[in-house]
């Protein structure tokens, strides 16, 4: 039992390390892109996209919006797991 707990803790620590590594890669990547943005001429398909770091800012805001809107949407369109199956009699899957 104790071994299981220790293994689980090690697993959690490993996953946290992955999380930190992911964050590190993302932050370093963004930093490099910032440097490129300062020194190189990037052109978008529309003039608005030529604004400084526009695709990045757009991506950040869009991602937050998608998740937050999705969370709000849960209240409207989320139902119990057996919402359809209890009426349609599909609970007894074989």
């Amino acid at each position, binding site marked *: 039992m104790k071994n299981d707990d220790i293994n689980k803790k090690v697993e959690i620590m490993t996953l946290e390390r992955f999380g930190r590594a992911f964050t590190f890669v993302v932050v370093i990547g963004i930093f490099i892109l910032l440097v490129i943005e300062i020194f190189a001429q990037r052109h978008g398909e529309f003039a608005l996209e030529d604004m400084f770091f526009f695709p990045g800012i757009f991506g950040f805001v869009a991602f937050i919006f998608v998740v937050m809107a999705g969370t709000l949407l849960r209240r409207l*369109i989320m*139902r119990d797991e057996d919402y359809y199956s209890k009426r349609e009699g599909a*609970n007894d*899957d074989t």
Partner: protein
Amino acid sequence: MIPDFGLPPGLLMIIGAGLIPFLPANLRHIWMLLAIACSATTLTAPYGDHVIWNVMGMELSLFHVDNLTFPFSLIFHIAAVLTVIYSWHVKSWAEQTAVLSYAGAAIAAVHAGDLISLFIWWEATAITSVFIILAADTVSARHAAMRYLIIQVSSGVLLIGGAALYFHEYGRITFEAMTLGSMATWFIFIAFGIKAAFPFLNGWLQDAYPEASITGTVALSAFTTKLAIYALARGFPGTELLIWIGAVMTAFPVFFAVIENDLRRVLSFSLNNQLGFMVVAIGIGTPLALNGAVAHAFVHIIYKSLLFMSVGTVMFHTKTAKASELGGLYKQMPFTMICCIIGAMSISAFPLFSGFVAKSLTMSALGGTEFILAYFILLFASAGVLEHSGIKIPFFTFFAHPSECVIGKTPNGMLIAMGIAAVMCIGIGIFPQLLYQILPYAKVKNPYDLSHVTGQLQLLLLAGLAFVVLMRTGLYPPEIRSTVLNSDWFYRRLAPAIISSVLAIIMPIVKAVDDLIISVAKTVMRGAKWVSEHPVSGPVIPGPAALVQVIVLVVIVAAIYANLG
């Protein structure tokens, strides 16, 4: 010179499928690959119509080849091979027969040069794919299969109706570019729209695909919807309405995918979103845009299959695809994890992956047009794709939290199929000309310029940072066991509720009228009986029947008299 089979491509696969039940289990997959290889020899056919059948005075072109059929026929053959390899461990002849005939029907449909042939293969894909869903052998799969069949057949009915009207209007049945306007073209357009999962016509996709077996879903993800994309590209290129339909398709499924717990259903929403990009490109209709649509369909079949295969492999071991029950499998299933991440990076359009080289074409084609809003909707949807397919699928499957699952050996076929698909995703990403040289229209330039690459990386990495922020602040919503309502709710709950409400009002009235008629009839009969038993005078009345006849006669005579008066 092509081998002269006298049969349309794909039909060889359908004939081959018919023999599968009679073959020993260990030979079936080799037989399936042989059938696909025989069909694939038709890929070398030159442009033109190679098989023409005269039926009831109409010329049916069953083997039409041109610059648009080739890439679709090629990728359908590749998808069929991947599906067969992935399902090598499957022993069910029913599923194998359905998969091979389904792929064959889709390939035959691509080569249909007229609307009647298209209808025949269109319906064939519907019927054969139903058996793939049924092969899952669960109650919910059976229910979903019936709903799926009704909708798919409806699409076929609209198509044949549209074809008949088109023949009436134009005197020909050639499957050619059409302009929306007449009832005929609207029928055909909606028929294609059902299979392409247009908004509010999409419920069947998220309803049925996740109900199929693990291997069945991989097959389903490749053919039906991409056949619809092909049909739209041939029938309605440059139809502006498609730009807005496609834009809605890219954006809306993103929100549903965020909160969906079943990862195969998440991938089905994601499929819908990707179809949106292709539909927008067809709506723009320029050579570059149509190349974008074809390229997107081509790479999408590969990376979507890869994602379905990865989740399917996980499901093979864990018996679930629920995000709330998965996680932490990176250690037990490293190869599957790598393949899944490659699929995720491809669909997210990371540079050096296949999605990037395809999506760049559509975005470039949309750039500089007056459809600025559509462009930014697609840009927004790109961030959404990263959320549900780029991050959610691999994160909740292989990371998220420690796993307690004990994983057995993964069948070699599954590993090989995933490996091939992953190599193709990277190969096309690094060498885009491999893909570009088979595209139907003008030559396409290399997408790897500074603006495209840095712009896309900015979008993706900052979106990734947003994920980190949401996770660390605890704002990212947890996965919850649930059902997410979709457009299938309209016919699964709303329509039955309305019908039962209407029946609840009508039935008592019907019953009351019924009771009234019965009571009147009983009263008349009782009265007749009484009169017959109590004659006032004269001869004995022969019986109630005669009395009723007399009454009826009196009524008729009175009515005639009143009418004459």
